[in-house]
């Protein structure tokens, strides 16, 4: 793990990169990284994020600045800008059931090729997907999903990069922290090693590549 400034971190992300961003309706999102993506005008992004948040908040900022070309998400109904950009074909949107979304990312992070889920069988979601029967029950084969970068927000990060999360801001962050080539983290609090007890670490230090240092 290396501590870097937010400018340095975002400079590593090329335009057109694929990024996973933690958070659920803007809660638990690394806002400083999103602000800097906007400032550095990183356009053409492939965004993997649960939702599109709302304008001005979380990943919503990326739609405000029209930086997203492709989006994989579970629900974008609360961001009218993202909806407009989708309906105007400015962004290609892949809508995925939330449980499938997180399992695909987990599979990507855990070296699995995919999972069999009952979710989506007999619906539009099943179109074009392999169906597999196990013990007489039908499942969809949903394949692993990864990104070049994961942007993760934690409550606590220690000097080594161990992470802990607060309340409902955990959501997709720990799963995404396993599923990208490069993991960049912002934390509410950077604390000495040992402040997070071993049993309370959620993301072990070796998973973190860069921690955004305090200003």
């Amino acid at each position: 793990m290396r501590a870097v400034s937010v400018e340095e971190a975002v400079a590593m992300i090329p335009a057109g990169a694929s990024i996973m961003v933690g958070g659920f309706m803007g809660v638990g999102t690394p806002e400083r990284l999103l602000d800097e993506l906007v400032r550095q005008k990183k356009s053409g992004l492939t965004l993997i994020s649960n939702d599109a948040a709302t304008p001005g908040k979380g990943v919503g900022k990326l739609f405000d600045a029209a930086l997203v070309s492709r989006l994989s998400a579970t629900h974008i109904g609360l961001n009218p800008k993202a909806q407009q950009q989708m309906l105007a074909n400015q962004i290609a949107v892949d809508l995925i059931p939330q449980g499938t979304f997180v399992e695909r990312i987990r599979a990507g992070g855990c070296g699995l090729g995919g999972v069999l889920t009952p979710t989506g069988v007999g619906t539009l979601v099943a179109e074009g997907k392999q169906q597999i029967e196990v013990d007489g029950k039908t499942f969809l084969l949903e394949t692993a999903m990864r990104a070049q970068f994961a942007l993760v927000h934690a409550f606590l990060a220690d000097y080594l990069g161990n992470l802990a999360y607060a309340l409902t801001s955990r959501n997709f962050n720990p799963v995404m922290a396993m599923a990208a080539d490069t993991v960049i983290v912002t934390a509410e609090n950077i604390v000495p090693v040992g402040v997070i007890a071993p049993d309370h670490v959620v993301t072990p230090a070796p998973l973190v590549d860069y921690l955004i240092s305090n200003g």
Partner: protein
Amino acid sequence: MDPQIIIARRVAKELKSGDLVNLGIGIPTLVANYVPSDLKVFFQSENGLIGTGPIPEQGMAHPTLTDAGGRPISALPGASTFDSAMSFGLIRGGHVDVTVLGGLQVDAHGQLANWMIPGKMVPGMGGAMDLVSGAKRVIVAMQHAAKGKSKIVAKCNLPLTSSRPVSLVVTDMAVIGFPGGKATLQETAPGVTVAEVLAVTEAELAIPDSVPEMKL
């Protein structure tokens, strides 16, 4: 009584002590208001919490404690938090005893459409498909008709949420179950007759000999 309150109060009767319950947005959210205080029900918010409590008092909201709509909530003693993989492991794995969801259409076989109106409303399914596929019991809480049109249809023409039929539909006019895979009128709302229900129901309904009135 307000139609939404009829629905919420009737759905609340379906919950048992110890149940893990997931409430969708809209009418389902109201159900929590009508659970008797001696009933120990665990409410899950799929963004990563079991033990959701009421909206916090003024000035007490925390930015990282919200429901799946991003609104501030509180947590009850004994609450637990977890990541989204665990949250949907609970949902898809059958650990959620009851989910209460809104609906656009439910058909004669109990199939539900509630996530999309092609060309008009394409917000994404969020957690709905997993909830309907995985929860032990799926209860749809919705108005019986919208703009005079029955939401209990012969066959859904909107995209399905799941091929798995729901367990129960509670509307402002009726309770409909699906014994043997067939929509069956189980109760009517206070002051509503069986004939009135049939008049605004597109789906064919089986009518048992006795159709009691909802107890609220």
